[in-house]
């Protein structure tokens, strides 16, 4: 069952996927405190671990074209079990959206504009998401992708060029001397939180219009997202070295150090702009996916009616989680990674396995 008539091409899917991954750049602070020097290694390991999962998500969507997450669960698990599972997923998405709205707001408050409360930032992000989904729909979400990706990649390259005098290659050495527990923790966080988010695409893939280029562009998008991560890791480690472990926002600190011709250029203003755009895009995608999932679960005809209540719900959740910021951050680092692992990687594995068995039974059962 499809909720809207909008379609977008697979080229836009590329930027959507990349945008979803790039939105986690600011959250990469968690992993820098574990592995300040070997972030790139953790990224490469996660990339290779994650690729089969990405293929699995794609195959699952291709097997049930036209069905989003709720529909797939219905078909694989039957009526009641599928609905319960989809309900659990909806709860997960709501909480995940709330956390994702909270992160950039808190980040901005701490690093840039100290006096403004977190609520103000979160309010405007939520309001923009509301506007984008009611006035636009999936087409708007897809079309914003290219702006986001261009902004992020351009700003990262700009910073690379400006920070070359400050990058010291000895910061990367020694290469493989990293406590394995910390490396595992970083890999865990990266795979389940940053890359696992791609599972939400199962609600968006039904709206892609040309399916023949789908696979190519999907993987190209993942590569673009990972490339941005690697660039960030390279920049932060190169400039800050071991010091990256003490900062709550290593990337911001790196940008503060830009010096053009011995003048402190102080262009972190620009960085803040791109950061907000990126974070907003990820929040928008999650918001849209939450909206679509809940609407399909409740079997409503259109999701636009539900957008306003959902935005109020998420906004109040943001206010609640903001009451205890450090606990949320700690949760994001530790417990939420496990929840994401289960929800975004293990259960889809089970789902595809069950669906494979079903098709096998159907073939042999006849």
């Amino acid at each position, binding site marked *: 069952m499809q909720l809207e008539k909008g379609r977008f091409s697979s080229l*836009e899917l590329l930027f959507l996927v990349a945008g979803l991954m790039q939105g986690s750049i600011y959250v990469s602070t968690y992993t820098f405190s574990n592995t300040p020097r070997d972030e790139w290694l953790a990224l490469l390991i996660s990339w290779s671990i994650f690729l089969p999962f990405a293929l699995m998500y794609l195959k699952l969507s291709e097997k049930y074209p036209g069905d989003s997450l709720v529909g797939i669960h219905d078909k694989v698990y039957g009526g009641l079990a599928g609905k319960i599972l989809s309900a659990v997923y909806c709860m997960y998405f709501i909480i995940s959206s709330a956390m994702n709205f909270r992160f950039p707001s808190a980040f901005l408050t701490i690093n*840039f*504009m100290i006096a403004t409360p977190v609520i103000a930032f979160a309010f405007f992000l939520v309001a923009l998401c509301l506007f984008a989904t009611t*006035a*636009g729909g999936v087409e708007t979400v*897809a079309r914003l992708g290219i*702006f986001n990706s261009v902004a992020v990649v351009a700003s990262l390259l700009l910073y690379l060029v400006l920070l070359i005098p400050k990058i010291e290659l000895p910061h990367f050495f020694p290469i493989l001397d990293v406590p394995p527990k910390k490396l595992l923790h970083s890999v865990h966080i990266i795979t389940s939180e940053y890359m696992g988010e791609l599972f939400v695409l199962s609600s968006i893939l039904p709206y892609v219009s040309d399916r023949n280029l789908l696979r190519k562009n999907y993987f190209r998008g993942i590569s673009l997202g990972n490339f941005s991560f690697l660039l960030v890791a390279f920049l932060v480690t190169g400039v800050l070295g071991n010091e990256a472990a003490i900062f709550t926002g290593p990337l911001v600190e790196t940008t503060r150090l830009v010096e053009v011709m011995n003048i402190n250029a102080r262009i972190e203003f620009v960085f803040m*702009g791109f950061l*907000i755009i990126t974070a907003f895009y990820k929040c928008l995608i999650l918001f849209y996916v939450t909206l679509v999932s809940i609407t399909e679960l409740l079997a409503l005809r259109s999701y636009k009616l539900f957008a306003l209540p959902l935005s109020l719900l998420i906004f109040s959740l943001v206010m609640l989680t903001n009451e205890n910021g450090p606990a949320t951050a700690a949760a994001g680092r530790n417990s939420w990674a496990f929840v994401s692992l289960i929800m975004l990687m293990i259960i889809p594995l089970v789902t595809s396995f069950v669906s494979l068995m079903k098709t096998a039974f159907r073939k042999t059962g006849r």
Partner: protein
Amino acid sequence: MNFILKLLYNIKYGGQRKKKPRYNAETSAELSPDTGGKAQKGGAESNRPPEPEAAVDPSLAISDKLDTNFEKLKEIFGGSGDVVFREFYFGKEKTLRGGLVFIDGLVDKTIINQSIIKPMMYDSSYLCSESECEKTPESIESSLLSVGEVQRECETAKLVSHISSGDTVFLVDGFNKAFVISTRKWENRGIQEPQTEIVVRGPREGFSESLRINTSLLRRKIKSPDLTFESMVIGQRTKTDVCIAYLKGVTPQHVLEELRRRLKAIDTDSILESGYIEQLIEDNPFSLFPVIGNTEKPDVAAAKILEGRAAVIVDGTPFVLTVPYLFIESFQTSEDYYMRYWFASFLRFIRFFAFFITVFAPSIYLAVLTYHPEMIPTPLLFTLAASEEGLPFPIFIEMFLMLIVFEILREAGVRLPRPVGQAVSIVGALVIGQAAVAAGIVSDFTVIVIAITAISSFCVTSQADSGALLRFICYFFGAALGGFGIVVTILWILISLTTIRSLGVPYLSPIAPLVMEDLKDALIRFPHWKMTNRPKSLDPEDVRRQGDDQMPGAYRNEQ
């Protein structure tokens, strides 16, 4: 509140509510003729408010008595002094009586005298009255009326509309059909250089207020017989002639059908300018940005038609509408294509940058000064702080005042008569700026920023109106939330832009739904020899516009 509005509407229209079809993303996305307006089309016609000429039954034909017809026409036109009724006798032994009705000032008197009255009076002696020979009307039409266009009409309403447009009606006593002779001619401005689109290189002809002149200008640009003009009349009292121009076989059918449907659904009294039509057929009536382009130059209109768009020419205004209109077109000028592509691409970037400056410069200045003073280099910061010392208003108010003053100056500069205008606008800007700084009301940096904003706003003229509004919105958000506010505004603008469609084509093509083939003309301009296909986002029927290997070069010509 809604109830009150409903009540007022009912009072005005006497219980007959008309539904207009809504063009939003959902209906535009399909653009098939079966959706939307079909049910309403019939409804529109039957629920139309009664016509102003309540006295005339529209379907009543003219009678074959000349006097009755004259009486009726005199009654319809009231006592207007410029409607001329001319009777004369012609035919064999001057037995036939005929009459001309025309409006002085709208007709070419030479044609009437030389080609209608003269042959009727002098050369018609072989004609007999209808009771004797039946071929009289044909011979009148085919042998005597030496005029280019002659039609036959038998409905009074249509005769009235023809007379109002400048045709001459020739009534013959005894025939129940009238001849409508095209004799339109009136004073007009002629072909002059357009005031709003000034170019350095390129033709300087501009459209004029007369529909026929405009169509002739287009015909001279595109001599192919595929160039089709479809006429229609819109506006019940103004009865404005409107004409859709397109290239058959290039412009896609769905665009044309949708355009026709929307134009036919317009139900209004007056169409005085193409802007009325533009605002009545928009896809997104609440958007800030224009979705229908206009131009005053025939070469621009011809280029757009050749790419697969349709043009709407409206009588009475030199501004021709082009649909569909994309955001990227505001940054393209005709000169871009006549210049070489390196400089043209550079100018495109300058225009984008100028648009960015004109919308965001005041708010960036404000946000950086008040929310992020660490961004400013230290020496500049001290100069700024020193210049703000002792000023009565906070920067927010200062800047806002200067923005308002700039808008006032701009509007005044447009309306002033020519000899005075230049001097006053320059004097106004300089003197007001300098005096305000010297008097200690504003700081000089504010004046500089406003001046830059003002100059940049004239770089991209077609977005000047939306740019001005966006500037204010961005300013308020920047004042409230600093850098974050500016980014929120940018995002809001981007989201609005991506939800707008222009006759079904997404507004930000080729960038937002990324169409790789069309990027040749979006941010930079590829050379002419590279642009072999028409823009894919317009979905033209004939995709190729030039041959493959068009790159020039000495070595090639040797082959």
